[in-house]
């Protein structure tokens, strides 16, 4: 079972915190870009012929800014070239104000069955400050178009002077929109983004304040029937993101398009971040990859641990021992002696205790060899 990720590197305008491969001024290249995407999909399918596809995720950028026919074409191409399971989860990311009835209709027609909306915050001043293209009202309108569908919303914490109350109201707004999945991301100021200046000037919430907000919203979501199944992800029963769960289980996935990463047959590789470079590579039948690593031995074990411990499902030690032909308890004896008090063991399952999930780096890096 494997996932497919399709990257759409276009948007209307850059958000102040965004350091993804997304180029608002290159929107005119969308058609040629998608032509190349189709070709890469075909090529990857030939390269990895026996993968059965369980999830597809179209991310960006803002995939919904491009012509819906291009998106539909990509999905059709995936279905044509790969074996895609009937009940596959197919997600698209979209922003309020970029979709209409027609687009949604087409998305649904080609099998898209999950919609991830970038809400970020329910407060218009904050949205404006982040250079988002929409308002809180636009979000509700968008949800209205998606009534009855499987909707997820992204929420940011740690914004300028943000309070827990504001985040709770944002959650309320998402619930009013009918979402069954919420991702709560702590804002990470990256060097080179406009918001990094605000961070340097101390205008954003401190780590301690962000942690307070996080704890508050975690409790609030629990009250509302959402389970935290990963550090930043909350879902009602049955609404976890299967595509993302695959990442944390260290399952295989094939990424296509600019900046997309893949993990197939023990190899991690990533495509170029530049649109022109990508298009030229594909046209001339060259590899668009810019990095490639075969992951083996303790490195592979470490990935498995690092990823699994982000989730409430935790690490299945029995499976781990089978996969890597080791004895986990013996192999990591010292780490366990040192850090077990921050973790929990139920049968074969090792998890980080709830209250330490947000400070897990300190535990995880002990497993690194």
């Amino acid at each position: 079972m494997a996932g497919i990720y399709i990257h759409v590197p276009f948007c209307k305008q850059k958000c102040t915190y965004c350091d993804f491969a997304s180029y608002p001024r290159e929107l005119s290249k969308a058609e040629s870009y998608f032509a190349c995407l189709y070709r890469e999909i075909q090529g990857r399918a030939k390269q990895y012929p026996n993968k059965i596809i369980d999830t597809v995720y179209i991310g960006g950028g803002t995939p919904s800014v491009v012509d819906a026919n291009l998106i539909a074409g990509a999905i059709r191409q995936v279905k044509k070239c790969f074996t895609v399971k009937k009940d596959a989860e197919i997600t698209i990311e979209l922003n309020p104000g970029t979709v209409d009835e027609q687009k949604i209709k087409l998305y649904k027609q080609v099998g898209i069955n999950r919609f991830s909306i970038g809400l970020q915050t329910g407060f218009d001043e904050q949205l404006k400050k982040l250079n988002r293209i929409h308002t809180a009202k636009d979000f509700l309108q968008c949800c209205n178009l998606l009534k009855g569908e499987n909707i997820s919303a992204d929420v940011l914490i740690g914004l300028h002077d943000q309070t827990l109350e504001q985040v709770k109201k944002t959650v309320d707004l998402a619930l009013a929109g009918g979402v069954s999945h919420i991702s709560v991301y702590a804002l990470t100021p990256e060097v080179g983004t406009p918001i990094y200046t605000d961070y340097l000037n101390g205008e954003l919430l401190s780590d301690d304040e962000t942690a307070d907000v996080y704890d508050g919203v975690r409790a609030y979501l629990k009250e509302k029937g959402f389970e935290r199944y990963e550090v930043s992800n909350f879902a009602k029963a049955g609404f976890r993101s299967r595509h993302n769960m695959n990442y944390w289980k260290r399952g295989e996935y094939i990424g296509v398009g600019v900046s997309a990463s893949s993990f197939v047959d023990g190899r991690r590789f990533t495509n170029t971040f530049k649109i022109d470079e990508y298009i030229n590579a594909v046209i001339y039948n060259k590899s668009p990859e810019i990095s490639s690593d075969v992951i083996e031995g303790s490195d592979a074990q470490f990935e498995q641990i690092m990823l699994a411990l982000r989730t409430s499902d935790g690490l299945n030690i029995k499976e781990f021992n089978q996969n890597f032909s080791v004895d986990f308890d013996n192999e990591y004896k010292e780490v366990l002696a040192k850090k077990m008090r921050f973790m929990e063991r139920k049968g074969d399952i090792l998890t980080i205790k709830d209250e330490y999930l947000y400070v897990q780096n300190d535990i995880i890096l002990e497993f690194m060899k």
Partner: protein
Amino acid sequence: MSINKENVRNFCIVAHIDHGKSTLADRLMEKTGQVSERDMEEQLLDSMDLERERGITIKLTPVRMFYKAKNGKEYVFNLIDTPGHVDFTYEVSRSLKACEGAILIVDATQGVQAQTLANAYLAIDNDLEIMPVINKVDLASARPDDVAMEVEEILGIEATDAPRISAKTGYNIEEVLEQIIEKVPAPKGDENAPLKALIFDSYYDNFKGVICFVRIMDGKVKIGTKIKTFMSDKQFDVTEVGVFSPKMQPKDELCAGEVGYIAASIKSIEDTAVGDTITQVENPALEPLAGYKKALPMVFSGVFPLDGSKFNDLKDALLKLKLNDAALSIEPDNSAALGFGFRCGFLGLLHMDVIQERIEREFDLDIITTAPSVSYKVYKTDGTQLVIENPTHLPPVTEIDYMEEPVINASIFTPPDYVGPIMELCQFKRGVYKDMVYLDKTRVELKYTLPLNEIIYDFFDSLKSRTKGYASFDYEIAGYQRSDLVKMDMLLNGDICDALSIIVHKDKAYERGRQIAEKLKDVIPRQMFEIPIQAAIGGKIIARETVKAFRKDVLAKCYGGDVTRKKKLLEKQKEGKKKMRSIGTVEIPSEAFISILKTDNDR
């Protein structure tokens, strides 16, 4: 080629720090054609990086020069450079033993300073002929005639005809060379007598074994000579002899009166002690030369490898350093917090600093040094007496009758304006006022008795900052004095960290406890849990600080493209952790142990 002893001069240069010792040495070498001006690297003798960076001479370095005098004869000069800092007095006395004369440099603007005195007396004690030289006459504020008077008045050395020179510009250097011939006696000693060579320094060469720096007092030595030392029974065949020019230059033989080196495939560092006498196996000398007074380490500190598995590397490094630094004492030590290491004794804080840096630079080892301590005398209730250099070895309070701490007699030289601030500082450091003497209108000598354990922290720095650098300071050990001392422990998360324990005067315990706790709070990074930091005497907590738990360190997103990035981030964090030491459940950066030194700030 045999050298006529009459034409040899062995001398050293002594001076107060920064009066121009190394510069004059460079100039002498240049004038005698030992190095061309073009090849001249600033301060040739200070060959250690550390010496150049700090502008100080730490190790002694011999060099041989040829000089054609005005009388037409050619002379061989052996110059043995010496360190200037008070911590290295011991090294100075070593080089003096190998000389017949000493050039005493005095700065024409500053006059006689603390180390001028100390070094001049040291030279006099060693029966050396002293030849004063007045340096820096090119400076506008130079007052050479006053300074010459000062030398005569304070030191009682004839200085009217002392060369007035500028080592910097090279002015009047010939006069120095001529006076060396005139004033420094030629070496005595009998070439035909049994070999007696004084080892005044040595170091380990990976190819040649131990290289001994020697002054031949009697006899001669050449390749093939079977030698032995007085302290060890082992015999060695000489493989190489030579002189310093200033690089080592092999020669056929070394004769009485000469300064040079001997290599004899000596593999073990312990077989040649500095101060020992080398003689020949056949027809040996009967008596060794008078050796050195053993230098007493005054400051003790734990030295531990950051990485516990490097214990043996650290041992080798310390032994190699000890080879030519007899003042360094080494004893195995064991700390609950830091594992196996060494308790090292140093002459002073600068010495400690230098050794620490040499271990890190020359041997590429990361080490943890604990706060320095002095040696205390403990009188127990059962009538026995102990000497304690490590606070953790202090017996329980109930077994202690009383304790004594070492004190020093300090002489502080200062312009009169700073007398007030210095007295305040000395009082703060538990000093007892002894005397105050006006040396002249611009200089006062203040005399205090001070506990050594107050000096080893930041006394030098405080003195400098309070006097804008004008005051200088010299001291000698004045024995022990009974004192109300307590052991103060630091507890991290409830556990005593033995490496942080200190012995402190009772009246200062509260203040230091608070300062150290505050300092530790700053240097210990936040961890997954709250860490109480407590200072305690016996079971009583006297200060407390808290390092709050950190709340967030996780990467918010970890999807398909983030795995590699996240791994790199964690690798970096892990790298940072390698600089940390786990004490119980708490991780402490290695600099924490020494940082508690720097808490004694001037209120």
